[in-house]
């Protein structure tokens, strides 16, 4: 198989195993490219991509932009911390206005779950979801799995725990779907208030004891607490959260085996992980960032090749 089964990347739940395999193999190639002295290929010289960020983002936006430029695509950036609806314009109108300037592909981050799916049904462009509310963040999950594959050889059979604010996290959801698709076992760990009540129905284990969770896993993916998405305090204080769900070096060293530490960023140092954990040799946080560019190049390249057909 040399092409994706989908025309958009809206979420991991819309992909199959072969899609992920293809994206990884393509990313392997691009990872080699971005480590060359000339880090650029001319593949997408005739493609224009609009990055529409209706929600704040630093690393994802930079990563996408860099991936697009490494592929020689023309890039258009649009950022608005306010949703277009509040300004009186609908999302469809905003995007159609941009598309009428002959844009081929849209990378969109949006605060509402399903915004990408909605857009894909109403506009004529290939859509890449760069995060939609608490729904999905597919390229993050792909780069996470890719980094596990790089570090541990394969994803299949590995035990991965996702720790922290699962309730408000699109990264958790996309990771659950991606890891399960590749045959990994997934556990979520955090305070009950931040774990969706019915998440076990997705086939994941639920654990509230961090030490048990870390002893079980091969990989711990530490999430940030998303205070900005909370309408009520889900725990009494950050201090108390850290006491129960923060990973420090002492805890890491007390485990029977050496586990891999991941984090999608941005890190709140001293909250979910301490600095010595973030900077330890067990941490692959910066590898994740580098792999992010290769994965995004792969996704954009594969979707663009479907447009060209």
């Amino acid at each position, binding site marked *: 198989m040399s092409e994706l089964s989908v025309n958009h990347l809206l979420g991991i739940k819309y992909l199959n195993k072969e899609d992920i395999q293809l994206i990884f193999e393509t990313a392997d190639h691009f990872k080699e490219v971005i480590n060359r002295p000339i880090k650029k290929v001319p593949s997408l010289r005739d493609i224009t991509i609009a990055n529409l960020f209706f929600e704040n983002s630093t690393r994802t936006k930079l990563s996408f932009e860099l991936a697009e430029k490494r592929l020689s695509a023309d890039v258009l950036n649009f950022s608005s911390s306010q949703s277009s609806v509040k300004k009186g314009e609908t999302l*469809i109108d905003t995007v159609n206005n941009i598309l009428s300037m002959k844009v081929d592909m849209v990378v969109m981050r949006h605060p509402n*779950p399903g915004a990408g*799916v909605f857009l894909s*049904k109403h506009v004529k462009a290939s859509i890449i979801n760069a995060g939609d509310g608490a729904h999905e963040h597919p390229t993050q999950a792909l780069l996470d799995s890719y980094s596990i594959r790089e570090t541990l050889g394969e994803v299949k059979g590995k035990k991965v725990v996702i720790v922290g604010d699962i309730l408000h996290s*699109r990264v958790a959801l996309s990771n659950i779907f991606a890891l399960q698709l590749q045959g990994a076992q997934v556990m979520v760990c955090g305070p009950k208030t931040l774990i969706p009540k019915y998440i076990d129905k997705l086939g994941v284990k639920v654990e509230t004891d961090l030490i048990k969770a870390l002893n079980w896993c091969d990989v711990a993916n530490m999430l940030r607490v998303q205070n900005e998405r909370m309408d009520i305090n889900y725990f009494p204080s950050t201090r108390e959260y850290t006491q129960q769900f923060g990973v420090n070096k002492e805890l890491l060293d007390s485990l029977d085996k050496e586990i891999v530490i991941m984090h999608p960023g941005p890190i709140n140092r001293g909250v979910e992980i301490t600095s010595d954990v973030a900077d330890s040799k067990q941490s692959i946080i910066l590898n994740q960032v580098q792999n992010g560019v290769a994965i995004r190049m792969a996704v954009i390249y594969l979707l663009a090749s479907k447009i060209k057909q």
Partner: protein
Amino acid sequence: MNILIKSATIIDSKSEFHNTTQDILIENGVITNIGNQLKNPKNYQEITLENLHISQGWFDSSVCFGEPGFEERDTIANGLKTAAASGFTAVAMNANTHPILDTSSDIEFVNTKAKNHAVTLLPIGALTKDGKSEDLAELYDMTRAGAIAFYDYQKPVGNPNLLKIALQYAMNFGGLVCSFPQENKIAGLGVMNENITSTSLGLKGNPTLAEELQVARDLFLLEYTGGKLHIPTISSATSVALIREAKKKKLDLTCSVAIHNLYFTDDVITDFNTHFKVLPPLRTKTDVEALTEGLKDGTIDMVTSDHNPIDIEHKKIEFDYAANGTIGLESAFGALQTLFTLKKTIDLLTKGKSRFGLEQTPINIGNKVNITLFNPDTKYTFTTKNIISKSKNSIFENETLKGNVYGIISNNQISLN
């Protein structure tokens, strides 16, 4: 109005002609004869339709027509036209208008708009001033103007003391108080049922707990006050159980369920289709089974289409932002018939009348004519072509429904499609 209906099968358990095929002679709005091969005495209009069945006119206890204030959604005139074409001879219209119907003059405005129509429109007044759930509206004055019940449409009475006072106060004049079953603090920003589908879509969940807490609270308040309460549109299995228990205490209590909450479950929301965004949200199979059982054993008194036209600008947007609601009059009969027998369907569509002050009008000689004409056996795919409402937000689009409506004869008028 003089009509001879030829060869109609009568579906009316209160009629001595139930389940028989007869000719029906109507003179000056009264059924003057029922029998085989009746002669047309004075060249009256004759109605002959394929597989014609008739029943008592149908009633819907919860519809919204937009007017006044939201005419872009629909108007009273077109709403009544929709009701007639869908087989309803009476509808109770909610006060979610702009301004909200919270004074006698508002009620009079609606009555003026709806007069001289084949369909009887029963206005529901707001329970509280401006629907703000702070102070009671002038319930007595609105009753005198023709308000049939009091309901802040889909807005819960947050303050239990206010509901207590409303129930007590309305007892002076037999007023029917409606309380939307939702505890808003638990429902939070939920946009669909809290379950595996909401989890996998990343959408905020509205748990059944929000409904059940409010139902339990309202039942305690009803028992304390001894008032007259209607709980519109319940959706959870536990609500059915709570109401079943409460009814054993002989409280003056009724409740309803929306047809779409019987027909769909939350797992249909796979691609963020906002046609499925309704309140109360679509629940699970367990809930649907309990609701169905509740209708069978009489715990739930009536079904409603909870007809709520929403313009495309408030539906063709992101799921979080989209308005709740579906139209339902046009699909009500066809959807119910996929779930229940014909007899039960008719029973559910006529049962609620007395609670909202309408008389039952069995199809018997000497009674005023108030009937719905239909063919129960046709099967068809429901599409926007079947929609008469100004707004096309139907949850039933592309569903296969059973039975189509020919029209109604009511208020001394005939309205055939």
